[in-house]
């Protein structure tokens, strides 16, 4: 298990060196986006209109933060469950998206798309929203403000701590549940 500090935007070389289980600290810009925002990004692409941010080398964090209290850039900001974005992810990877951040397992289609486009899936600790927000130094809504917590935000992060779950070589960190042993009691 290696440790890396990476700056955004990410390159092919950044991703190729990573193996599932590695710890990565991200510094730079990441974009937030979850269910409703992904639907709108896809509708925008269908219409042939430009996206609200550049996907090339980008990282999307599946998060809907809680409101920022006075004096803080953002509220609590931990990952949401990623499988709900599986429908949209392959297309975005095909357009230059280098990584997504969330929690939980990805579909075979997303894993294939990541291998084909040299992209990775990073895990952040679910339910550690107060802790993770400490690495977020600035936040501003850049699109779909009407979606409230689901609006797309540009986050400036410093050493945002992540774990590589799926690398671009087919590696996956999650365990396969030992169903037989559990059923046997």
């Amino acid at each position: 298990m290696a440790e890396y500090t990476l700056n955004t935007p990410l390159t092919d070389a950044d991703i190729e060196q990573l193996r599932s289980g590695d710890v990565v600290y991200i510094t730079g810009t990441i974009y937030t986006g979850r269910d409703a925002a992904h639907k709108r990004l896809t509708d925008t692409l269908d219409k042939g209109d430009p996206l609200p941010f550049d996907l090339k080398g980008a990282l999307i964090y599946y998060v809907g933060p809680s409101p920022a209290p006075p004096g803080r850039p953002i509220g609590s900001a931990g990952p949401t469950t990623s499988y709900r974005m599986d429908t949209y992810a392959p297309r975005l990877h095909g357009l230059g998206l280098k990584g997504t951040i969330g929690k939980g397992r990805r579909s075979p289609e997303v894993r294939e798309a990541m291998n084909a486009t040299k992209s990775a899936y990073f895990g952040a600790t679910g339910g550690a929203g107060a802790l993770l927000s400490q690495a977020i130094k600035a936040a501003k809504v850049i699109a779909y403000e009407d979606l409230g917590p689901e609006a797309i935000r540009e986050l400036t992060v410093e050493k945002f701590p992540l774990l590589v779950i799926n690398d671009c070589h087919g590696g996956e960190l999650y365990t396969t549940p030992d169903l037989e042993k559990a059923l046997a009691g």
Partner: protein
Amino acid sequence: MRTIPAQTIVDKVAEMCIAANRELPADVLQAFKTQQAAEENPAAKEIFRQLIENAELSRETGLPLCQDCGLAVFFVEMGEDVRVEGMSLREAVNAGMVKGYKEGYLRKSSCDPFTRKNTGDNGPAIIHFDIVPGDKLKIWMMAKGGGSENMSRVMMFPPAAGWKGLREFIIKRIAEAGPNPCPPVLVGIGIGGNFELAAINSKKALLRDIDDTHPDPEVAKLEEEVLSAINKLNIGPMGLGGKTTCLAVKIATAPCHLASLPLAVNVQCHSARHKEVVL
């Protein structure tokens, strides 16, 4: 007849919503510490370390434990000799929830099921009422996140399925949920009743403390058995492997129809936020 001003309920409910989202229950925090020591897998230990630090930070800063402050679910026991003055009990609970989520900078997660438009105030609160003897008003509040709720299921078994069938369904459900619902989870199980009562009971069961024992020793044994089985899955904290896939299994039962054996499995993430108040 005892009279409670609606405003008292509004204020208490608002306080509960804010406190529940900032203060991890003591039994859950203690379970993190115990399991952190018990784990041999370094990744599992590290997740517990982060969760303990997160709980401390949340308490210090007032930031919610988790950005998903949940749909606000209430179980209300209303004494027959209590009267609420000023507005209806439902209005008071809902108004308190709206106040708490606004003033506590908690995320509003309630939206229209079709348009997906956010209702803007996390409302309406989901409230289950019970009328009981006496002149007390008891309110439990639970902040139930969407990620774990999505992993929950109701299944109507034929009676022939028996405990064996139920047990298999529960274990398979948690296995399939895997890393998605933020393990280590707590599992609330409703057995019997009917379609909706099983579901309500499965959630209500999650209000019990981690270390309490079911009053019926037979049911207590089943809880232990399922807990031990689930922890053999090796899903572990956040799906990274380890001994702790589940912190507690809580079962609630009710008599059911001759033709039915209803089962509900309510999955609760490790951020098991709830509060109660007696007025």
